[in-house]
């Protein structure tokens, strides 16, 4: 029973690729672009057979909201034929490499009316059974900077700098506590003297350096 199943599966696996060798076409799923820019729509395929000389690529376009497709590009017999009457006349260019299975096209100077679905169909004789693949093109207008972004940027920078200043200030005080900066120490000594007349403790050992430093700050 098991051996029968194993033999059957080997035979089936051996037969299946031979009969349903299908060509698999790859394009993108969705492409975004800005008005006035150029976009490259890529199309490639996978086939079990070698790339034949009669390989063909064809692109069709269906505008958004329309039911009809219009053919805009065809490559066959080693020559590329681009749209010269339809919506893409003078804007379409073939930038693919058929020998490397690349059938990409370049659309220049996009307009809002170019929104739609582009379908690529490739055939690699004798491998011709396959499903065409579609890519959706979305054309956007450039959005200028919004007022909120500017306000946010100003507020962000101000808060950041404030935090920085506060951190530096407390860092300085921390270092002062370890007597690294004598300038700040003399200032603090003077403050304590002004605040409370009685506590003469920290001030009396008046170093000449401290007196000189305080003279510098006052001047």
């Amino acid at each position, binding site marked *: 029973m098991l051996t029968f199943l194993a033999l059957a599966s080997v035979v089936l696996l051996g037969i299946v690729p031979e009969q349903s060798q299908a060509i698999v076409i790859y394009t993108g799923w969705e492409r975004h672009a800005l008005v006035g820019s150029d976009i490259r729509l890529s199309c490639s395929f996978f086939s079990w057979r070698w790339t034949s000389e009669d390989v063909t690529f064809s692109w069709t376009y269906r505008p958004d909201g329309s039911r009809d497709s219009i053919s805009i590009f065809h490559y066959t017999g080693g020559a590329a034929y681009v749209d010269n009457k339809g919506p893409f006349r003078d804007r379409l260019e073939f930038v693919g490499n058929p020998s490397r299975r690349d059938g990409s096209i370049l659309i220049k100077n996009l307009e809002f009316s170019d929104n739609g679905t582009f379908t690529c169909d490739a055939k690699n004789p004798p491998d011709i059974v396959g499903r065409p693949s579609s890519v959706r093109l979305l054309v956007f207008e450039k959005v*200028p*900077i919004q*007022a909120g972004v*500017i306000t946010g940027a*100003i507020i962000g920078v*101000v808060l950041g700098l*404030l935090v920085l200043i506060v951190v530096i200030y407390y860092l300085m005080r921390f270092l002062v506590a370890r007597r690294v900066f004598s300038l700040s120490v003399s200032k603090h000594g*003077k*403050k304590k003297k*002004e605040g409370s007349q009685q506590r003469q403790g920290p001030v009396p050992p008046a170093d000449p350096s401290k007196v000189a430093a305080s003279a510098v700050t006052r001047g």
Partner: protein
Amino acid sequence: MMEELHLKRQTAVKHTVIMLILLGAIFALHIIGIILLLVATIDNAWWMTDTISTDVWARWILQNGKWNYTDLPEGSHYPQDYLQAVQASSVLACIFSILGIFVFVAQLFTLNKGQRFTISGIFQFLACLCIMIAASIYTDIFHRNEANGWYGHCFILAWIAFALTFISSITYFVLRKKTA
């Protein structure tokens, strides 16, 4: 003796009140400067005609009764580098001024008696310098040969802010801290 003391206290109170009013006025001047700078920077109304209201960030165009927010044109009559210089210096002016008010409040509490508010003055002076650069570049480069149109409220506010921040910085340089 009692009258002398009474008189002394009265003058002391009057002194404090005057100090407080002065402080409030200086504070208000600085805050008004900040507000004017922010409005001039963020709003899009440096140059206006009947149908457009344009600025350093974007352009409002009146089409079919609706105002549309569109991009600024690019070209030789709208040089991008000068535009970015105006944008950058006006934003810098806002930042310096806002930092200056915080520095002023901090200096109010940490300065010794008799010292001047130099750091606040420096910040306000930098803000004054930056907005002067922005407004000068805009005046000299953009819309030189356009006859139909006038300067919008942001442009005017920018120059007024220049004057206010200048006065404010001079005040900070001259003022001394009177009470501890």
